[in-house]
């Protein structure tokens, strides 16, 4: 009966409050990825606590190089911010990106040297649970940092080939978020390593 009284185009669509598109999605993607990484390291930390409770636990004297590596990584967060500021001022961020990349690579190389140092002391992956967790924590973190380094190389290649005007701002911002998270994660891991191992 009422079908004859139908009208069209009377309802207003309720617009989604968010800006939509690939730019927003990539920002969400970075945060969601970070959340997953936090979850993985939470699982590893829980494993450490349970494993510590089950016995055969000793202690390791941490190589001081770890702290130098930490300083390099923290400094790289600063240089990453300088790169963002440079782009915001329409200047080329390539110098700061290069410095960040060098600092990031030196952190990874430094972690490798820490491994060599441990091996020289006779501490290998399977020597005891403490050394096992030290290698796992540093190794998995370094692996994730290499992902950040790959993103940096991609951005730098973009700037070198197309000039800094071709660089999409959200890509640099997302890389920076990930990079700072890697720094924060490392501080957390260093705390766990130094207090538990």
């Amino acid at each position, binding site marked *: 009966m009422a079908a004859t009284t139908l009208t069209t185009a009377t309802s207003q669509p309720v617009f989604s409050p968010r800006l939509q598109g690939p730019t927003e999605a990539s920002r*969400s993607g970075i945060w969601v990825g970070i959340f997953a990484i936090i979850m993985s390291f939470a699982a590893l930390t829980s494993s450490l606590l349970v494993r510590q409770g089950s016995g055969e636990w000793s202690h390791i004297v941490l190589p001081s190089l770890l702290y130098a590596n930490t300083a390099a990584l923290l400094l790289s967060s600063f240089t990453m911010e300088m790169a963002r500021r440079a782009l915001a001022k329409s200047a080329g961020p390539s110098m700061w990106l290069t410095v960040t990349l060098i600092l990031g690579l030196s952190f990874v190389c430094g972690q490798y040297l820490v491994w060599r140092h441990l091996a020289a002391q006779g501490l290998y992956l399977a020597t005891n649970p403490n050394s096992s967790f030290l290698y796992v924590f540093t190794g998995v973190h370094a692996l994730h940092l290499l992902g950040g380094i790959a993103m940096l190389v991609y951005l730098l290649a973009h700037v070198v080939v197309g000039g800094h005007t071709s660089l999409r701002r959200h890509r640099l911002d997302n890389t920076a978020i990930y990079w700072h998270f890697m720094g924060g994660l490392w501080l957390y891991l260093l705390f766990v390593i130094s207090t538990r191992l």
Partner: protein
Amino acid sequence: MEQTLPQPVHVHAPPKGFLRKYVFSLDHKVIGKQYYGLALIAVFTGMILSWLMRFHLVWPNAKILGLDLISKTGAPGGVITPEYYLSLLTMHGTLMVFFVLTNAPFAGFGNFFLPIQIGAEDMAFPRFNMMSFWTTAAAFVVLVLAFFIPDGPPISGWTAYAPLSAVGKDAGPGLGWGQNLWAISIGLFCIGQLLGSLNFIATTLDLRTKGMTLMRMPICTWAWFITSCIGLLAFAVLLPACLLLILDRMAGTSFFIPSGLVISDRLQNHAGGSPLLWQHLFWFFGHPEVYIAILPAMGIISHVLVTSMRKPLLSAKVIIYSMISIGFLSYMVWGHHMFVSGMNPFSSLLFSFPTLTITIPATILTLIWMGSLYGANIRITSASLFALGFVSMFVSGGVSGFFLAQPSIDIYLHATYFVVGHFHMVMGVAAIFGILSGTYFWFPKMFGRMMNETLGKVHFWFTFIGTYCIFMPFHYLGLVGNVRRLASFVDDFMPALMPVHRFVTIAALITGAAQFIFLYNFIHSRFRGKPAPANPWDGTSLEWSVPSPPPWNNFGDRHPVIYHDAHQYGVKGLHGDFVMQDSPEQIVRG
């Protein structure tokens, strides 16, 4: 108004060339079909393994033609050894849980329909999407390789309990490279699912079209979104667990292997590890995994039921809130799998409460489905039959969960067929019914052709009655103390149960054979089925507003605008008793 809307930005160019179109495709629809195809291969493989197990249980000395060609040591002369039975058990569970129940309802249908249902052109990260599928496909190949290596597949079950799974080949057949392949495969699978979950979440949050608020999304879109949130957390825990397992096995660490373990007269060179740690990590993933399998099925059958009933559900919002509650609670109940593991009994009590609590949203869901059916003039199709079958299976399998949630009862029932009956019905078969319902419902959209409804209904009745015949007796067998995982029954009271087992095996063979009716229908309809119109079921969500099958960019140059909630049925619309989400017509309730 529509003239002021931004034009759609194509996230990728039209695919060109065979490889880009069909193999390394960036199109979410092709990737969805690839996931579905992989699940189809896995489900028939897993089903044949279950046939072999059931066959061996009741005819233990019968020779199975050709089986010795796959494994000379596992099935000498075609007769399955007790160890090979455990290998089949492990591979059946792993294939079904990971490569079927996760792949088809979530990654398969979700990939195909989530972007269309929210009005997006594709997933947020098409390259990640492609990588996600091919990582999963690689995981499948690595797992199946275990059948063809001399060591054979592992015997440690789909849960890979340590220390059995961690100590290496000394502990038994399949625990050398077979178990290594298992651990690598599951690690790869985790990476694939993490990439997929990330994609689903970002897509749902940021690529919804104009007017598509979160509460206007169809229920199945919500189900995929909640599932991706669960998956993100669950697989992020299983991945490091697999890493630690691999290190125990290959690098000599002692995360899961305790001190003083002697296997095959050899003292193991490990010390201080915790076998319980593996169980905690595994079940922290494992229980949410149950919901990763069942939530998409719940979403799919809600979608199918509301379309078939031609009236709104009692409350779509409560369904969504209940699914969110289930997702949240699923992370608090993992210890109920460990009541007999030696865990502190106080912990058992703590895990029992949320386990019983999770039955509340599950019951609310069931009541909404059943209450909505009251007074509905339901259209009986293959899809709606399987959706109703889902509700039936979910209730029948769920009821036994009330018993198992209580530690004092679970201690008696845990190692028996009662548990096998419970989880197969509530999670396995129910989710399969969800997948089948979705297949009959969405096949026209996915392939542009209709499936044969008569064959679909025959398939339903064989499957529905058959699965009850298989899994209901398991509860009885469990109650009388029939231990699970055993390849043969030697205790005094067990031979008396053989007639029941024989009945189950015959039911399994018939029900399994009936699945070939589905396979025939699927393949035949794919090429010879009646061409499908854009909206064969008078649906309201966006997938029915595009051609069958949809073009590469889903909506062409159209930019859909959403005016209504997802399920507007039982109204007086321009085209019948429904109003589509993107139709600007006014809702007039009849």
